[in-house]
């Protein structure tokens, strides 16, 4: 056993340890010290050797899942420019409360994260935050889709992907150049697939509800044709092309076919698209306005199937904070988006575990090693539980029943249509580099003299 100081040690006992990267799914103990995982004890003999006396804190993990720290590759932390909605600090707090130890923030800030200096700014602001924050940089200057950003310098500054998220790269010629640049520097390109001319003035899914309410419709085809175009382009380029927040059944099918052809494309599902449909917008409920929009049951089911059969490999909340005033505007004028970090795990449980689409080990993979690979975080040892690796650990109570209230939303904004929803499954501890950043362990915590943030 590697040496460590007893004073900062943590022992988690009897948890169901799931590490998809090493195909581990066993009951056991985990010892953490010095910010690293020191021991993972599965066998009886190994577990017997661990003495609580060597650590400062003991956590009774029985009935809990010990997972590599969850990673969200798609959040909006609004800094710089929109600090009244969220900051890197407040967003990281929300992330930790939701069980995430690392998040990747999108560049649709003001100014957009489109230079190495701005990527470094975001990194600086993340110092001391409650979780690791990585920046996805803009693929084009000002996210205008016209001029390339300095992808190599952005990568060197720490960008973990390129995206014009919030806007789609509409020009096919530009898209080809972006994909080539991404391939050259080894960053994934993350597409917000939305053909702009078809979605001008669109406020929600083009369907029966939009027809009745007299709201501008956002047709599925506007997403599908961009993805179809991009996979054709990428067939000859070979970058890692990633489709963010898939909303349409047809998109799943396009990606499925492309992957079969060997094209390097991955898909992402957001919690709301896995559990909700356009009827949520009834009564002009602007809290249910999101981009891409909530669609129909057939889309929701297709998305779950795409997660089940491996077409969708990554889950991302698209955490999109907005102020109460903005969401109180008339539906057509209210901004798109939900906060999603604090409720994500439970909604994934509802959409994917309760529906039978995947089991826990696969869900954990979608939340850890898969997004780590997408963003190159696996190279830092994130997304897995490995002795000697960083002690980013999330404990999840898979059975906890709870109701989402505003008190559970610890970021700066509370815009979600899921307030009041009854949920199952909740993270009970978020540990980043051995430090407890969030915990709701109650009596499971057997410690002396250590004060943890709650």
């Amino acid at each position, binding site marked *: 056993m590697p040496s460590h100081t007893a004073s900062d040690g943590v022992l988690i006992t009897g948890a169901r340890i799931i590490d998809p990267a090493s195909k581990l799914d066993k009951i056991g103990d985990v010892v953490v010290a010095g910010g690293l995982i020191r021991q993972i004890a599965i066998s009886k003999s190994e577990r017997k050797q661990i003495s609580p006396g060597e650590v400062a804190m003991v956590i009774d993990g029985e009935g809990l899942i010990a997972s590599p720290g969850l990673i969200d590759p798609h959040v909006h932390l609004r800094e710089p420019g929109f600090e009244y909605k969220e900051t890197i600090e407040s967003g990281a707090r929300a992330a930790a409360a939701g069980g995430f130890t690392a998040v990747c923030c999108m560049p649709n800030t003001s100014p957009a994260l489109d230079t190495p200096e701005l990527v470094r700014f975001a990194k600086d602001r993340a110092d001391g935050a409650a979780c690791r924050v990585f920046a996805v940089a803009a693929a084009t200057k000002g996210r205008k889709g016209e001029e390339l950003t300095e992808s190599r310098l952005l990568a060197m500054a720490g960008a973990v992907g390129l995206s014009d998220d919030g806007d789609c790269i509409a020009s096919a010629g530009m898209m080809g150049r972006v994909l080539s640049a991404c391939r050259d520097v080894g960053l994934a390109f993350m597409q917000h697939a939305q053909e702009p001319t078809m979605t*001008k*003035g669109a406020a929600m899914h*083009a*369907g*029966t509800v939009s*027809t*009745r*309410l*007299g*709201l501008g419709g956002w047709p599925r085809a506007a997403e599908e044709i961009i993805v179809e175009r991009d996979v054709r382009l990428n067939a000859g380029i070979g970058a890692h092309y990633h489709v963010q927040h898939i909303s349409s059944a047809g998109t799943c099918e396009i990606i499925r076919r492309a992957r079969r052809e060997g094209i390097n494309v991955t898909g992402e599902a957001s919690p709301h698209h896995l559990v909700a449909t356009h*009827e*949520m917008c*009834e*009564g*002009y*409920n602007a*809290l*249910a306005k999101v981009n891409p929009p909530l669609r129909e049951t057939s889309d929701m089911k297709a998305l779950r199937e795409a997660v089940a059969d491996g077409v969708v490999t990554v889950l991302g909340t698209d955490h999109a904070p907005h102020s*109460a*005033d*903005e*969401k*109180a*505007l*008339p*539906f*057509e*004028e209210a901004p798109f988006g939900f906060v999603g970090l604090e409720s994500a795990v439970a909604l994934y449980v509802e959409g994917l575990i309760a529906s039978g689409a995947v089991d826990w080990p696969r869900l954990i993979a979608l939340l850890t090693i898969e997004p780590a690979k997408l963003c190159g975080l696996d190279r830092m040892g994130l997304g897995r539980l490995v002795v000697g690796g960083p002690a980013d650990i999330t404990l999840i109570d898979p059975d906890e029943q709870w109701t989402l209230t*505003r008190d559970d939303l610890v970021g700066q904004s*509370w815009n979600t249509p899921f*307030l*009041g929803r009854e949920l199952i499954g909740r993270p009970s501890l978020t540990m980043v580099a051995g430090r407890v950043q969030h915990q709701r362990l109650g009596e499971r915590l057997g410690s002396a003299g250590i004060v943890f943030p709650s």
Partner: protein
Amino acid sequence: MAQVGRSGRAGGRAGGSAVRNRKMSKKVGSGGKPTRTASEVVESPQANSSTRAVVAATPRHLLQLEGMDRVTLTRLLRRATMHATKAEAGENAEQTLSGVTVANLFFEDSTRTRTSFSMAAFNLGARVLEFGATTSSVSKGETLIDTARNVEAMGVGVLVVRAKQSGAAEMISKDAGASIVNAGDGRHEHPTQGLLDMLTAAQALGRVETLDFSDLRLAIVGDAVSSRVARSAIHGFTTLGAKVMCIGPSAMAPKSLETLGCTVERDLDAVLPDVDAVMMLRVQFERHGDASGAKASPLIPSIREYRVGYALTPDRESMMKPSAIVMHPGPMNRGLEIDAAVADGERSVILQQARNGVFARMAALEWVAAAPQIAK
């Protein structure tokens, strides 16, 4: 009780948390429907006579004709007919809204609807407040809902709201102490227009007594997808039993409109001989995404081509049944969707529609203000 329209309100707004409370208490799909449970009626001191409107504990709103049952529709139309008959006989209307303040809150331009509501309120003895709101006040600084709250705070009992955003009236109704009448919200509904259209059709086609439209065929021609008039007509006419068709090019009359309970046709000439009423819609250039207001729309290649398919010309008019009528909600683009000879011709009931607007709105105002004559 110092303020009419506020005193009996159930529950209060608690300062800055109003938005939160409203959003959190919302139930999807059930909020703000005009068919909501009739409110408990409480007597206000000034209104102890049985001929006066009284203030309801929970305000009643008229937001849409979708979901309004036949009984309520019939009640509104009978009351409007009664007003029409009285006016015809030169009698004054009962002062059912005396002591009530009605505010016209128009965030979007209007001439006839606004005038018609003012007239209706005056006829019933209400005080009428004209609020000059401009679209520019609807921004983050002064939201539509803020404006509405401020006007309401001045002691208004009924707020008549016109706005360019679909759902605006419903949104304001969600935390309003006043009754809200939707005078047109974006592309959604224009319920009092629907009522006046039904009243006009009933009069012109001999159905005032029965209000049974079950053998009646209505053609709505033109830009139905952008039209709140069309949506209210589809819901109202079908509730009374009519068969409603929308006719226009796909971009203006998409098949998806059939989910509202109408059918969608392309060939106006094939339909015209069979219909009892034709409702011509204005081509709404301003809702087609070009802010310039120029007489051009991305939905159609040219006006002359549109006219070939869908304008109501004298030639087309001659294909209609002898008894069939022509309606138009106004304002008309003469020479575009309708020719002057037809608009001013014998079948035209367009001016009757304008006249009936006052009577329909009188009934609507009485209904939301829970006047005992109509609020059973």
